[in-house]
């Protein structure tokens, strides 16, 4: 940036002209695309707003009106979507537990928490609070076993458990793969590459349905926890490669300097290598969290009552089956809010940290 004479900031109309109506081709493209967009928007608004049926228990009105959306199904059955099979009187616990995890997620975006001590404490504390609230059995809360959990809370539970188990595992995997012992590095590399080339669905299926076959009686446990462990393993293998990328992008002088100062292996890793590696690997890590949250929905195929299954259940009964599409749109909006804000935050961080521009 040696050139200090910046061009004058264009006015709004100047901007409009250069970006939208710069020459005949550009103007045509703008007009055609705008017409197309307006046409889609008009149809969408007609369906979703103008002709839509709102309010609780409007099933008959919906059936009579097929020009518009039937948001009545959401107003009537949102409890099933969000809470699944959770007992009705206790559903506030499920909602509160989800809120806690959302707060934890928002707090982890605050730079003050970004240390090797604060972030794990925050997540473990949040997760424990979530589990205690959901499970109950003490403090006068009736016990609700995992089998009765469902809806959004189950999706949040699986996601946060996978992150909590997967992250330390990923660090272990990355360090083992970088090990100076050749056979350890090779064996870990083989495991990571094999798991990465398998579809997540196949891994979940194996852990949920096939693994009990190859485990002794005492180790089988709940299928929910087996799926979480399988998913964590999958997450760890992907995240390990991201961390390895972060480690490899460090100049070798960093580790050599630490060695020259006489630091031991754990000090080098804990104070020199990993903090810098994580900083380099932050954008792909957030991207990995986004993908992990989205792919949590695959458990619906294995037969868990997550938010996808509960949505399909809510629109699965005979009197509401015509409104399946509206239910999917609602679920899509639900996911969009979470995933979009997380990915925007990732993009903001990328700009702020200036990764890639230095």
């Amino acid at each position, binding site marked *: 940036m040696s050139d200090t004479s910046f061009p004058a900031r264009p006015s709004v109309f100047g901007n*409009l002209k250069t*970006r*939208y109506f*710069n020459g005949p081709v*550009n103007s045509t*493209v*703008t007009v055609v*695309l*705008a017409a197309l*967009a307006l046409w889609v928007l008009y149809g969408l608004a007609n369906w979703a707003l103008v002709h839509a049926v709102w309010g609780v228990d409007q099933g008959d009105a919906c059936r009579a009106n097929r020009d518009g959306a039937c948001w009545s199904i959401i107003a009537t059955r949102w409890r099933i979507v969000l809470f699944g099979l959770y007992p009705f009187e206790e559903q506030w616990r499920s909602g509160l537990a989800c809120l806690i995890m959302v707060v934890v997620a928002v707090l982890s975006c605050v730079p003050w928490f970004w240390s090797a001590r604060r972030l794990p404490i925050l997540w473990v504390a949040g997760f424990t609070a979530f589990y205690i609230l959901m499970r109950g059995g003490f403090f006068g809360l009736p016990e609700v076993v995992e089998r009765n959990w469902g809806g959004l809370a189950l999706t949040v539970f699986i996601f946060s458990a996978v992150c909590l188990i997967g992250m330390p595992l990923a660090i272990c995997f990355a360090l*083992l793969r970088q090990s100076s*012992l*050749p*056979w*350890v590095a090779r*064996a870990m590399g083989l*495991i990571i590459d*094999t798991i990465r*080339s*398998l*579809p*997540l*669905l*196949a891994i979940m*299926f*194996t852990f949920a*349905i*096939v693994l009990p*076959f*190859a*485990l*002794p009686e005492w180790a089988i446990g709940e299928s929910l926890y087996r799926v979480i462990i399988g998913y964590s393993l999958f997450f760890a293998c992907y995240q390990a490669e991201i961390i390895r990328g972060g480690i490899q992008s460090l100049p070798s002088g960093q580790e050599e300097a630490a060695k020259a100062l006489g630091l031991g292996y754990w000090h080098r890793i804990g104070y020199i290598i990993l903090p810098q590696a994580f900083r380099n690997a932050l954008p792909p890590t957030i991207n990995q969290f*986004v993908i992990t949250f*989205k*792919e949590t*929905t*695959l458990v*619906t*195929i294995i037969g868990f009552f997550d938010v*996808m299954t509960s949505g*399909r259940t809510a629109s699965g009964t005979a009197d509401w089956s015509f409104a*399946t*599409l509206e239910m*999917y*749109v609602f*679920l*899509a909006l639900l*996911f*969009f809010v979470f*995933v*979009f804000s997380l*990915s925007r935050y990732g993009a903001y961080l990328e700009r702020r940290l200036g990764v890639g521009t230095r």
Partner: protein
Amino acid sequence: MVALLKNRHVRDGALQALFVGSILAVLAALAITAKTNMDAQGLTGGFAFLERATGWRVGFSLIETDATLTYAEAILIGVMNSLFLGAITLPLATVIGITVGVMRTSGNGMAELLGAIYVETFRNIPMILQLLFWYTVLLAMPSPREAELLLGSVALTGRGFYVPGLNVTGGSVFAGFVWIALMIAVIVRLTPRRWRNIDTTRARHEKRAVWLLALLGFVVALWLGRISNTTLTSIPEAKGLNFKGGVRISPELMACILAISIYGGSYIAEIIRAGFNAIPKGQSEAGKALGLSVWHIFSRIRLPLAIRIVMPTLINQYVWLFKATTVGIAVSFTDFFMVISTSINQAGQTMELIFMLMGGFLIINYSIAWVLNRVNDAIKLKGTQLRI
């Protein structure tokens, strides 16, 4: 003993043996438990079950089978369906991705806005949700009785799309695609080894000959696979309550194609956009200075450079997208994964089938990565004229 432990070589050796040994021990323990459980259930191991009849039918198949479908045939159909789905969706996702990626870097504000809306919408919603959404939309299409033929040849109904087709066997279509893939492999192999080193016109003629050969082989494959006693082309027509003739694309297949290519397209668009943004400005400015048209700058300078820059990322994306085709099970599309999981439920030969599933995916994914890496080697920028 203590002296032995203090020896660095001995200690390293022992640690490695311990690590590898414990992994092997866990795997062996799993295998032994599985064997014991299978013996207890009276199941015999091995792959003899592949010859047994399954007793179920598959919804979609490229090859004809008789009434009794064996496990081997079912698995073959599953593999072919997965490859078929991948062969359709991966190129389609690429086309969508390049289109949207170009829109987002075009400089036209409207195109950039719409491209951004596309990417942010479809990237931020789980693929399985999109799949179920499209499936619901497709099933809600009018019934065949109410549907009309568009342009006299295409019918969009709730029971599938009817489009004109050829009266040929599915196997011959598959063979034709395999042939084209082989010819592309030949081109990729010859480009750096032969055509870079010989006269340009001669290289162009030879390249054209290979393309012709590919096309010719494809036509021959279809011709040989003609179903006897029928006309070559088959056009759907309304008959009674349904449509006869033509090719029926089932809602399951159509939903898979839509969901995977739209979702994959939004990811590829971002990769392509990053590629365009990584091209140094000097490249297109040099093109402008030479008096090239906007189209020439795009098609001869920017697009080839962008593709070469993003190729390694794109390869990972293709492998990932192919793995993602397994969600087809949510709408009962009979792909490799669905056949295996159904077989596990029916035949109980769990270990063998899981082994086949993992082996199959390892082979397919490594093949995709291997082929595309060869493509990358063939087209990547040589030398250091362009620093990216």
